[in-house]
């Protein structure tokens, strides 16, 4: 009797194993800053990942070279610590043996895990990273879909200001790597263009009050104000610039305006503000852009971040399209990602080395509460409008 039972159990187990094998999911691993310094920034990326996973699974699964398989995430918290991300990606590749990788949040984390994917020859499409130093990373196993790279941004921002007849500018910058890197390229570009820098100030990330700095800008009365700011000081800037009455027809605020709460908090005050971003749901030529925006809003009740959410979703789309052709073989996958052109919510994307070679460096402007591409004109979804004085 015992033997019979054991036999039955073995047979059932075998049958289950076969059944499971047929429907075995594709396991995709990544780490995100769920706690710590960057925890507030990471949800926009995770939301995009989860939206993509749910959409693909609802459509029957991920096309792995012709075979449909469900997607399963293997996610860890890297506590906003790049060295923790390194340990996690090592574990994902060697212990968890995931089939595919998605990127962690932010430039330092991308740099940190670039070495790991290189070591294991495991191709990964990055997303929320932007630095000129990205180009120094060995090409082969990591790619960056962003076109908001500081040196290109500086050149394009100055070109855009020139097209608006800007002759003087006030420049303030948060002392964080990304904003300082942009500033490093922006100052010489402004000087070369003959635009006078009337105010050139920096402030620490924990700034609590900008009244003194903004009073100085009001006195200088420049044509343009460029605030190289991060979300929390962007809020401070917007509030206090209105309060102090700092007005300029050209108004650039770096990171923050495209985060959902910003539009809710500032409403019509946000109109006219120019910000970083190369994606907009109002670009009708990009057939996938609007459906992504609508699906995101429906699922989360907030708008996607125009940079991080869009880039995260793009990296998923690129991976999805590459896997459909190449399957899960690393060598084949690397080849396809490096050579093919991908249809994304941001239009066609093709890589050269580690960089996106097709998407132009662009800027968004808020108009009637909508974030429109206004620069360069070749991709613009609306013409640029000079910013009016702050509403009272």
């Amino acid at each position, binding site marked *: 009797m015992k033997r019979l039972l054991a036999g039955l159990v073995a047979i059932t187990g075998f049958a289950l194993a076969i059944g499971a094998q047929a429907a075995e999911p594709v396991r995709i691993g990544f780490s995100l800053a769920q706690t710590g310094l960057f925890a507030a920034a990471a949800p926009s990326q995770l939301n995009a990942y989860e939206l993509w996973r749910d959409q693909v699974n609802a459509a029957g699964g991920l096309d792995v070279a012709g075979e449909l398989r469900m997607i399963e995430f293997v996610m860890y918290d890297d506590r906003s610590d790049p060295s923790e991300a390194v340990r996690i990606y090592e574990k994902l590749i060697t212990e968890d043996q995931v089939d595919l990788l998605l990127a962690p949040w932010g430039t330092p984390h991308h740099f940190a895990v670039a070495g790991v994917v290189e070591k294991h020859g495991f191709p990964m499409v990055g997303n929320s990273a932007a630095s000129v130093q990205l180009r120094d990373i060995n090409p082969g196993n990591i790619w960056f879909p962003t076109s908001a790279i500081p040196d290109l941004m500086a050149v394009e921002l100055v070109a855009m200001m020139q097209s608006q007849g800007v002759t003087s500018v006030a420049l303030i910058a948060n002392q964080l790597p990304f904003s300082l890197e942009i500033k490093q390229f922006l100052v010489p570009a402004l000087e070369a263009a003959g635009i006078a820098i009337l105010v050139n100030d920096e402030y620490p990330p*924990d*700034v609590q*009050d900008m009244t*003194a700095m903004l009073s*100085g800008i009001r006195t200088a009365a420049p044509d343009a104000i460029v605030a190289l700011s991060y979300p929390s000081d962007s809020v401070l800037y917007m*509030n*206090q610039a*209105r309060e102090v009455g700092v007005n300029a027809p050209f108004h650039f605020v770096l990171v923050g305006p495209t985060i959902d709460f910003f539009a809710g*908090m500032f409403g019509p005050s946000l109109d006219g503000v120019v910000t970083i971003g190369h994606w907009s749901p109002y670009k009708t030529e990009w057939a996938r852009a609007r459906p992504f925006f609508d699906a995101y809003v429906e699922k989360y009740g907030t708008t996607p971040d125009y940079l991080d959410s869009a880039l995260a979703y793009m990296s998923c789309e690129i991976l999805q399209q590459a896997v459909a052709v190449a399957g899960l073989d690393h060598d084949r996958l690397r080849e396809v990602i490096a050579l093919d052109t991908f249809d994304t919510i941001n239009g066609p994307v093709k890589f050269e080395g580690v960089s996106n070679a097709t998407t132009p460096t662009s800027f968004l402007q808020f108009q009637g509460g909508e974030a429109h591409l206004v620069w360069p004109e070749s991709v613009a979804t609306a013409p640029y409008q000079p910013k009016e004085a702050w509403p009272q």
Partner: protein
Amino acid sequence: MADLLSTQLLFAALVTGALYGLTALGLNLVYGTMRLLNIAHGEFVMLGAFAAFWAFTLADIPPLVALPFIVLLTAAAGLAIYRGLFRGLLRNPRLAERIESNSLLLFFGLSIVLQNVAAALFTATPRALPYLDSIIRIGDLGMATDRLATLIIAASVALAIVLFLRFNLLGLAIKALIQNREATQIVGIDVEKIQRTSFALGFGLAGLAGGLVSMLGQITPFMGFPYTITAFVVIILGGLGNLGGGLIAGLLLGILETYGVALTSTNYRSILIYGVFILILVIRPQGLLGGRRIAR
């Protein structure tokens, strides 16, 4: 450089100072009466801000209307923590001796737990309130209505607390406990009741500060820590346990920050604040207004 005589700078200094003073007042009450180092103070500011956010978002209750309820809510949370974590420790004389360092660890743990519970419940996505965002202009001076309201409420509550401690019997008993714990027990004051009251008041004030800052900036589960740090700087400057001293130090810090930055650069904010902080600790280790009777 900004005009130092501008009313705009004065307004900014007062708003910053009033918020610093209010945040520090709650921390100081809890430290003064029980020698508890509440590292989780900023987390109660965060909870107050979230309470204001949800009241506004879910029930259309404006933050200014919700404030009294937020104060009650955080005060109740304070009481629960007092009963759950500290009453026993304070009663046991052996444990009470080590209460300062033990409370630091307990509150540190509590702060991590609260941050992560808030992140799990509300997600880490930053949020903000569109409320009182018109600007009042008088001549050259522009005042955002929410900042003006913050100044008025923070200043009046701080003043009310000072008056309460000076003229109300319970307030006087709190002061007595801060000044001399043993003598307070000898003259028959109900120490347990005073501790309870101070705890509730201290946490309620943190919630109040949270309700106010919810109108000014972004709300996230991790927003509390800078408030804890600033509050500690303020109460150490003013003299640990010296409530009036803390309020004056908060105001001075606001003035120092605003005018110091106007004279130099926003770059020097931290150097200015911590430079003056260290300088004062070297010259007057008991704090600007701390007397010998407090520093024990």
